[in-house]
């Protein structure tokens, strides 16, 4: 089985940030591998270890994104492709989906894996966009993957329960981080990753120019989330405070 995993470099949501005149300013050095993609890589590795195969990762992003690719290679992926952009084009899911499609259209693979969403934007669109553009059967929000006689068996977390879906290859799937605990690269992995190949590709060589990619959604400004009014904290004798709060829920908050 040949896996392509699309991985994204995202800002660390734990990094301190500030909002200045509607602009979100984050510590530019604190970039990480999107957690959902880490799970996608992990699962691809597990399956290829089990059934044989190859895992290749592709990442669109600034020069710094090569670190994100290294991380995936250190986890065990075999090869990386880095589609280099300046990183500040304000691309949206649609732009990235178009780039990924251009990159993947003439590639050979069985499973195209993506994260169910970007940790920073939570859009959750790119996966099904790419699948549609490449005319691949797909499913989203996978919490488990298996391979059965050449088909991909996906356990999908749906609204009411878990759907077991069988996809013929080639197919696309977007992964939830509830699927597994991504491995933390060990020293051997980190050292090995340095010798693994990373192709750097520019948009032109994919036959696209930035103008083809103009996003039709853009974030015009950021603001702090509406603050909740300060709450009350009750400490002391469990029995008393428990009853007191129960009372307040009835009399003060009247939600009982």
């Amino acid at each position, binding site marked *: 089985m040949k896996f392509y995993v699309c991985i994204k470099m995202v800002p660390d949501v734990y990094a*301190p940030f*500030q909002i200045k005149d509607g602009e979100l300013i984050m*510590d530019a*050095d604190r970039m990480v591998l999107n957690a959902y993609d880490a799970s996608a890589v992990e699962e691809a590795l597990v399956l290829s270890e089990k059934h044989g195969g190859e895992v290749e990762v592709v990442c669109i992003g600034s020069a710094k994104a090569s670190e994100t690719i290294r991380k995936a290679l250190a986890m065990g992926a075999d090869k990386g492709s880095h589609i280099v952009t300046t990183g500040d084009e304000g691309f949206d899911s649609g732009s990235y989906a178009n780039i990924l499609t251009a990159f993947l259209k003439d590639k050979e693979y069985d499973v195209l894996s993506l994260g169910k969403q970007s940790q920073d934007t939570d859009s959750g669109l790119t996966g099904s966009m790419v699948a549609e553009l490449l005319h691949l059967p797909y499913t989203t929000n996978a919490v488990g993957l298996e391979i059965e006689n050449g088909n991909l068996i996906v356990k999908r977390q749906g609204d009411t329960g878990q759907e077991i879906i069988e996809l013929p290859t080639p197919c696309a799937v977007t992964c939830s981080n509830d699927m597994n605990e991504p491995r*933390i*690269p*060990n*020293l*051997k992995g*980190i*050292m090995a990753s*340095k*010798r693994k190949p990373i192709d750097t590709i520019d948009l032109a060589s994919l036959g696209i120019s930035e103008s083809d990619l103009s996003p039709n959604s853009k974030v015009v400004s950021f603001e702090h989330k509406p603050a909740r009014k300060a709450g009350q904290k009750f400490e002391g004798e469990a029995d008393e405070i428990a009853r007191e709060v129960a009372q307040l829920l009835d009399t003060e908050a009247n939600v009982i």
Partner: protein
Amino acid sequence: MEDKFDCIVIGGGVAGLAAAITLARNNMKFLLIERGEFAGAKNVSGGVLWGHDLAKLVPNYWEEEDAGWERYINHRRLTFMDEQSTFSLDFKSKHFNETPYSGVVVLRSKFDNWLSGKLQEAIDASDYAMDSFIATNIKVDQVLMENGKAIGIKTGEDEFHADSVIIAEGVNNLLTRQVGLQDNYVPADHMLTGIKEVIRFDQQVLEDRFQLNGLSGMSNEYVGWATDGVEGGGFLYTNRDTISLGLVLGIKDLREKKKSPHDLLNHFKTHPTVADAIKGGEIVEYSAHVVSSGDSRAMPKELYKDGILIAGEAANLLMNAGKAIQGMDYAMRSGILAAETIVTAKAKNDFSSTTLKEYRKALDDSYVMKDINNFQDAVHLLHTDTMQNKVPNLVCDFGRQFFTIKNEPTPKSEKMLLGAIKKHASLWELLKLGFKARKSL
């Protein structure tokens, strides 16, 4: 053996990074291992990196757009505090604007990350571009020894071998103890705890409030009321658009006086002078970390052993004689010297203590050990009750009288001073102090 290194550096702090950059520049094959997710991730401390060594490591760093440092120091202040007043020695000089700067304020998570970028560049430029590594998010569990000599390290199940190991693990020097260079018991009175808040302002507000110009910055140390009777002191450093405000406190004294660092920091912040300085700021970071007192009694028995060198605060190399905390610059210099020793050892192909003791010698000949030795008395002096409480109160009391104009006959300053002295200490005490100070400072 294929992946045997010349050296494994444990710790990606100032000492480890300085050592590694020096190794790379000398074409050594090495491995730098940092526990944190990235260099700096685990480093809460932040303050002034004093001296010129950074310029040796990163020539013309000041020309770089948005380098890892925050501001250069051209304005210094030492402040005595009592409950209501502050009396400061204040020095600002154009002389300090010249490069290489004599001190730059850094925020470690950013600075270390930037410096490890420089290390990567150095690696890429070296003969071992493909064979030397920076490995983050990896914790060294053990230094591997073979008949008394270090032969590598162990992390998890994996073992990695090297001719030498530089331990630059910082003040929490578990590995240093493990290899037997330091007793497991270091008396708490030789240790301090540092706590710090990073407080953000609008950059313009910050620059106006502290009279900063371009990237110039100020450093302010505080003694007296700041620590509410607990041995230690306070500091304020200006970053790009934040300040670092904090205390360094004696752990033993904290325990005895049953005070919490966090409460003391809030106490410090209520002082009118400090309150005015931080008005309108937003706390964006809070952190606490152990820091050595600079008391040489806390130093490891020795800083070398067959195949092993100890650098930076792992060796308790730190100086705090009141006018500044010097830990990062000591870390940087010791890291460089340790690496240079390894380079010599490689040339001689002898990594035994016979060669490695050169490190100790180089350190002794450097300002690091010279200052640590020369200023021990000052270190102790700073921690006496007289210096901690009496002097600040006395000075502030005198200041209050001296600067008050009452439309009444004004007594002579000398009289004021004597009055203040009598009130807060004895003349004799002061004479002793003055005498000690003359010797120690």
